[in-house]
């Protein structure tokens, strides 16, 4: 559940920076629901919209969500390939790199013509890559533009023109993207955590990839052809369209323009991460002023809408580490040792890390904060969660999800994420059913199973030589 809309990747997906926006610690529902999504009571579907699913013979799946909100259509292309697919040495970051290449045009619609098409459409466009998928969105006004969008996007995905020189010019842009975040200690800490916690699984690197691999991208023309053949295929792609349109017409248009796209039939085998046998630790000395940072990761389960562990851990993260938790209120508000404290349990196709993180006001308090986080994890294993707290968290998750589904684009983007995980937006209803059924005992059991010292990786970052 956590990080459901976490986006990494191209310029189009970057988070705002340098904005003098102060978000109150009284966090919560900050987005607004133009679509008037009701917060559904427990026991009813969290996705209250009719969803139609079609599949072409070549395997391309179409998820259609017609909405009453007028004028706007969100057109999402979900390629189920991300960092997870970068299994060969030296190829980290390639999913993201290929996302950039997807904007380079085709013979029929060269790059300049594609840019002009999007410009005249006045579309909100986005492309981003994450651990498990790469996503391309076009949000536009006026369903009269639907056929042009389907036609142009089908041509782009089927007939992308890639040339050696194009790759050599675009590859340094990735290094530019890396450079844009180079001053940010958050990214360095995540890189360090992943690199330390994983030994063989591709989640070892971030979506951008290792710097040495980024710098070698100009030489990777042949591999880019192989990558396209393997993963940019209808049997690895889902179209998700939400908004003001007719699903039957959409299906006919998709059949017409995507029907000739050839299947890949490539079977990806990702390396299995061996069970971690002892605690790991790493530190990064930051060369300029910064607040100290701490992250503690435990290997956890993959996303599942059927097995209870992940749902129990999602609830646990909120109960013990969100702004309403006793630990947060003590460390942030009362003792004022931390600027922030939180938990980030990413939903991923393969098992990934359960991460607790803190930004600390003084490096001298790093050991204390680490000890308090670990103490809290031990407490969760033995102390039942009060029923009211459990009910509050379930309520919070429902209202928060209703907020995420509140605009045409928000709904499409959120569902695209879950579709990328499970192939079907119905997974979200199953997930919330699981939350409803999760008990205090489930949470204690999951905590005992995963929060073991031998399963942990602790990374810190502080000014100078640090600890």
């Amino acid at each position, binding site marked *: 559940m956590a990080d459901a809309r976490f986006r990494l990747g191209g310029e189009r997906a970057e988070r705002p920076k340098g904005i003098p926006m102060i978000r109150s610690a009284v966090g919560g529902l900050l987005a607004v629901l133009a679509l008037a999504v009701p917060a559904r009571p427990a026991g009813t579907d969290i996705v209250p919209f009719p969803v139609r699913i079609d599949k072409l013979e070549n395997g391309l799946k179409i998820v259609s969500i017609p909405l009453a909100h007028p004028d706007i259509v969100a057109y999402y292309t979900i390629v189920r390939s991300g960092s997870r697919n970068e299994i060969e040495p030296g190829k980290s970051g390639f999913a993201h790199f290929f996302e950039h290449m997807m904007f380079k045009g085709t013979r029929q619609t060269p790059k300049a013509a594609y840019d002009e098409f999007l410009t005249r459409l006045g579309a909100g466009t986005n492309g981003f890559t994450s651990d498990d998928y790469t996503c391309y969105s076009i949000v536009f006004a006026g369903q009269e533009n639907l056929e042009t969008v389907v036609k142009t996007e089908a041509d782009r995905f089927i007939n992308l023109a890639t040339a050696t020189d194009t790759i050599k010019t675009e590859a*340094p842009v990735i290094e530019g993207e890396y450079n844009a975040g180079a*001053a940010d*200690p958050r990214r360095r800490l995540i890189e360090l955590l992943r690199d330390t916690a994983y030994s063989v699984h591709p989640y070892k690197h971030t979506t951008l990839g290792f710097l040495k691999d980024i710098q070698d991208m100009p030489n990777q023309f042949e591999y880019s052809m192989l990558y396209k053949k393997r993963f940019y295929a209808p049997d690895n792609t889902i179209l998700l369209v939400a908004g003001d349109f007719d699903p039957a017409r959409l299906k006919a248009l998709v059949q017409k323009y995507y029907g000739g796209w050839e299947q890949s039939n490539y079977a990806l085998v990702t390396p299995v991460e061996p069970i971690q046998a002892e605690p790991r630790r790493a530190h990064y000395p930051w060369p300029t002023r910064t607040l100290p940072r701490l992250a503690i990761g435990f290997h956890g389960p993959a996303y599942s809408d059927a097995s209870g562990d992940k749902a129990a851990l999602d609830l646990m993260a909120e109960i013990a580490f969100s702004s309403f938790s006793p630990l947060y209120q003590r460390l942030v508000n009362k003792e004022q040792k931390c600027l922030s404290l939180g938990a980030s349990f990413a939903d991923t196709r393969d098992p990934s890390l359960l991460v607790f993180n803190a930004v600390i006001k003084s490096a001298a308090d790093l050991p204390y904060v680490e000890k308090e986080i670990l103490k809290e994890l031990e407490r969760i294993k033995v102390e039942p969660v009060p029923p009211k707290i459990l009910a509050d968290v379930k309520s919070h998750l429902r209202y928060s999800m209703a907020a995420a589904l509140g605009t045409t684009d928000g709904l499409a983007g959120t569902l695209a994420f879950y579709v990328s995980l499970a192939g079907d937006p119905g997974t979200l209803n199953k997930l919330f059913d699981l939350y409803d059924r999760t008990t205090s005992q489930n949470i204690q059991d999951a905590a005992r199973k995963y929060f073991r010292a031998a399963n942990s990786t602790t990374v810190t970052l502080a000014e100078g030589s640090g600890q």
Partner: protein
Amino acid sequence: MNRLLAGVLGAGLLLLLGSPAACKRVNPAGLTMELLPVPDDPLVAFRILIKIGSADDPSNREGLAQLTWSLLADGGSRTRTIDEITRAFYPLAGGLALSMDKEMAVFSGTIHKDNLERYYGILRDMLLDPGFREDDFNRLKTDQADFIDKSLVGTMDESLGKEILNLMMYDGHPYGHHEAGTAESTVGLTLDEAKAFYRENFVQGNIVIGLAGGYPADFPKRVESDFANALPAGFTPRMILPTPRKPRGLEFVLAEKPTRATAISMGFPIRLTKADKDYFALWIAGAHFGEHRQSLSWLYQKIREERGLNYGDYAYIDHFVQGRDKFPAPDHARQQQVFSIWIRPVNNENRHFVIRQALRELKKLVVEGIPEDRFEMVRTYLLNYIRLYPQTLEERLGWQMESHYYGLEDFLAQARAVLPRLSRADVNAAIRKYLDPDNVLVAVVTQNADALKAALAADAPSPVRYANPNMPREILEEDAIIQAYPLNVKAEAVRIAPAAEFFHKRGLPAR
């Protein structure tokens, strides 16, 4: 803060807007209500705007406005601590966000109408009966000082460049410090000062209460009455701002620190806001030259797409804050505006080349104007793109409030009416009238600043390095012109200071 005058604003005003239901009204004490009822919507959005921002900080008390408003948003009310409020809001997924700017701040939140009473009761006390506890004050003051002293200077190079550009533009001007203040001023602020600042400024005539969505019909009256009963009448007259200094030629400030890449911002104050009739013509020029994070941006095409020199390059004809997705966030309005260019980090060895390239493109824009084919395409783009701006209740309400700040009935509706009537000549006239490519301020965050200064002062050639050995001939031919493009920078117009010395005190560090 002596500009506060007791008084009333005369009779109530009712201004009907584009939507028959949307309206603005002002009570006799000056409290303004901006209403956007959407009866079928299950949500209610609040945007409570206070027309007091960092420009209103008293002398040597920079950061006081932000700290005071933060205490309201994140410091608890007299009846509830911040922890109790968090626990009450949590099951509702409710919250109260604060955005700060030079002349205003906005408290915003959205709640399901089932929870409206509970939410509003808490929010009302947070704003009208704040707790002002010493503990909360110390926590928020430390966070604000740490942001300035550690995060901005140590870990946010691009933001640092933008904020240094602001210092360069507004030296000695009420806009001339960061909203969070300086490291020195913030540490010196006291709780008593925050209380006094609240009492003096959180008065009816300074407040605009925005409500949108499915609230009950009598709700606005109740909110209005609560604020009117709790707060004194009075208002702070709109600040009379001095004219910002015009740059003399090209002026550089180089903030030196270890960097993998160089962050660059440049620009100058501009005599135009959304209230001016020329705004729409210059808007087309700005979108053509550097539309925010769109491939439409000319600079993006020249620097990133053709040459792969960085991650993106954009330009703005007024102060831009990104809201949802890549759209502008409303309610960051200002009386005085800026033109700016944002060059995302470039490899250190290409920094001189890219500075030259951006300044040359600006000069070409002014001399040659917008190309005919681009003019028509950009106008079509804007007419379609702005249809996506107001998608949420808060956005619709925000654009309504921003329109009224500038004395417009409906900015977006006016854009739809005016843009189709403009000609390329109108756009080029606006470019020539408002953009001056020869007098520009440039802020650079980089290492080895002495070498850059020497290269700038000598107008030394600045060849560019590419990974691609087969760059197209037309690019290389243009590069040969760019690398020798004369900037005529005087050595005394290039100031260097260690990055760590910025934002300790007001203004730029001593030379």
